[in-house]
Each structure stands twice: as structure tokens, then as C-alpha cells.
């Protein structure tokens, strides 16, 4: 991965703090999630490997750019998405987002996996990046706050 474009939430902010310490990855703070997707695609189209780190609410903003850029031009694009509102999320107001996250991913035909914190997280990221590269499209790794503990 050479570039990570992000709009943070609490969990993604923690992850991006680690990304910023990497000398190999350019961290880009985007103002809006659709931008982050296009920025990552631009890096990939020009010889790098871009990734997108956003909250699930932000992923919901990205239907247009997923259809009209990532899928239309078959650009590999790996996402790490915080799964707010799942059963492990302690914050009550995220619950509506949690209810629709997996149905939305399914409806948008976005390949995804839910990170297993008991297994090798680094390996799951590598698998996701490789899956996006193989398919020439998006792949979403859903994470919870616990995954970052």
C-alpha cells in the first residue's frame, strides 16, 4: 500500500495514527468519503496502491463513486471500514448504521469480510488488498474497535 485516504471516526482515527507513522504510506486526510475513494484510485492508476479508511456511514456516501469510477473502470480499491453499530459497539446512536451495513454491502455487491480479531489481522488486510487486485474492483474489510485493541 502506498497511499491511504481517510475520513476518520474514533476507530479509524486510531488506525490512521499508525498509518502516519509508516514511511511507506502517504496518509491523506480527505474532507469527504467520495473524495477518498477517487484519491485512492488515482494513486492506483498511476502505479501505486491506494486504500480507503472510512466509517460505515461514509461508505454509504460512496454509492455513486463506486458505481461510476471503481466498478465502471475496474480499479482495485481496498477499504477498511469501521463497522459502527454492530453488536459490539458500545455507542447507542450508531445502531441504525449497524443494522443496514451488511445489507447495503450485499445490495451494492461489494465483496467484504468482517475482521476476525482472534486471527492474523495483518494477513486479513493482505488478503483484502489481493482480493481487490484480483477482481479489479472494491473489497471491504469491516473492523470494530476491538480489532484495534
Amino acid at each position, binding site marked *: 500500500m502506498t497511499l491511504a485516504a481517510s475520513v476518520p471516526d474514533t476507530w479509524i482515527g486510531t488506525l490512521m495514527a499508525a498509518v502516519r507513522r509508516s514511511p511507506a504510506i502517504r496518509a*491523506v486526510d480527505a474532507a469527504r468519503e*467520495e*473524495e*477518498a475513494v477517487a484519491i485512492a484510485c488515482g494513486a492506483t492508476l498511476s502505479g*501505486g496502491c491506494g486504500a480507503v479508511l472510512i466509517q460505515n456511514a461514509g461508505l454509504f456516501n460512496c454509492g455513486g463513486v463506486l458505481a461510476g469510477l471503481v466498478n465502471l473502470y475496474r480499479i482495485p480499491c481496498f477499504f477498511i471500514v469501521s463497522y459502527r453499530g454492530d453488536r459490539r459497539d458500545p455507542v447507542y446512536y450508531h445502531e441504525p448504521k449497524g443494522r443496514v451495513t451488511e445489507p447495503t454491502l450485499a445490495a451494492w455487491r461489494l465483496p467484504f469480510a468482517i475482521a476476525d480479531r482472534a486471527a492474523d489481522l495483518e494477513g486479513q488486510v493482505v488478503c483484502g488488498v489481493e482480493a481487490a487486485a484480483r477482481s479489479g474492483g472494491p473489497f471491504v474489510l469491516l473492523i470494530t474497535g476491538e480489532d484495534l485493541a
Partner: protein
Amino acid sequence: MTARKPLLEALVSMLAPDDVVVSCLGANSRYLPHLAVPVPVFALCDSMGAAIPLALGMALQRPDRHVVALEGDGSLLMCPNVLATVAACRPPNLTALLWVNGHYESSGGQSLPAAPLDWPAVGRGLGIAHVARVGDVAGLRAAFPKARAARKPALLVLDVAFDPAEPIPPYSERPDQIRARFQIA
């Protein structure tokens, strides 16, 4: 007000070998295949607002290339926030040309919301370091080299005539062809 095609032709004539062009959907993307552009072009056909962030990702990934983004005012009005993202990244190798005609040309020529938009002020207000307004071909010929030489994120605001009868050519390339042909050495 100047028509689109002479401005595009002037831009193409000024492109340097290390340039890369990202074009917004619509008329620009439809014209470019007919203008013998001498540099890599990534032409969008269905993603409003993606040209500048796509160009930003390229500019950050390839600091050895100068990336020229062509964006429409309708598209940028959907996501002007991207200018703040560009300003924060401070790429010295990104020039955005904003084609302002006050209409959603590709979707049937509807008017943008009738607000007195001051795009240079928007650009400056969101932190773009080099902003200039261009009203004709001579202005573009003067402004584009300055934007490139500024070595700062640049926004050129082009006032373009809206002509509903303009014979814009149809799309001549499919996305898979555009993607396959787009290679930056």
C-alpha cells in the same frame, strides 16, 4: 464568452511530455479523443466530482508528473470540499481547470442553482494557493504556464460559453478502453 473547443485546443497545445490529464465527464471527455492529446488522459464518463480527487491521488503518487484536472462547475458544486483536501496536501504538481458555464451540460443543459458563485473566491477561501480567472484563449495561454510554474496547487477558473447547439461529439471510447490505454511511464 469563449467557446469550449478553442480553449481545449489551446490547452492541448501547451501540454508538456510530463503532463497527465484527468477529464471530468461530459463535453471535455468527449472532445479529447478528437484532439490528438500527446499525454496520458483518463476520461471520466459517469462520476461527477471525481476529476480533481482522482488527479490528486495521481499527483501524490507521481510527483515527477504534472497532473491537469479538468472539472465542470456543476460537478465541483457537488463537492467543493475537495479543494480543501487539495490545499491540505499541497501538491506542487496539480493544476485544476474549472470550466464554468453555469449549466449541467451533459444531463440536458439544466441551469445550476442560480447563486452568484464566485469560484476564485471559493478556491482561495478553501486554501488553494494559486488561483486565476481566465476569460479567453489568450488568457489561458498566459495563465496555464504560470500555474505550472507556481509549484503550488493551482485553480484556473475558465468562463466558457454555454451553447445548447454545440456539436459535441459522442463518447468514442468505452471505460475499459480508457482504463487499458491509460499508462503513466
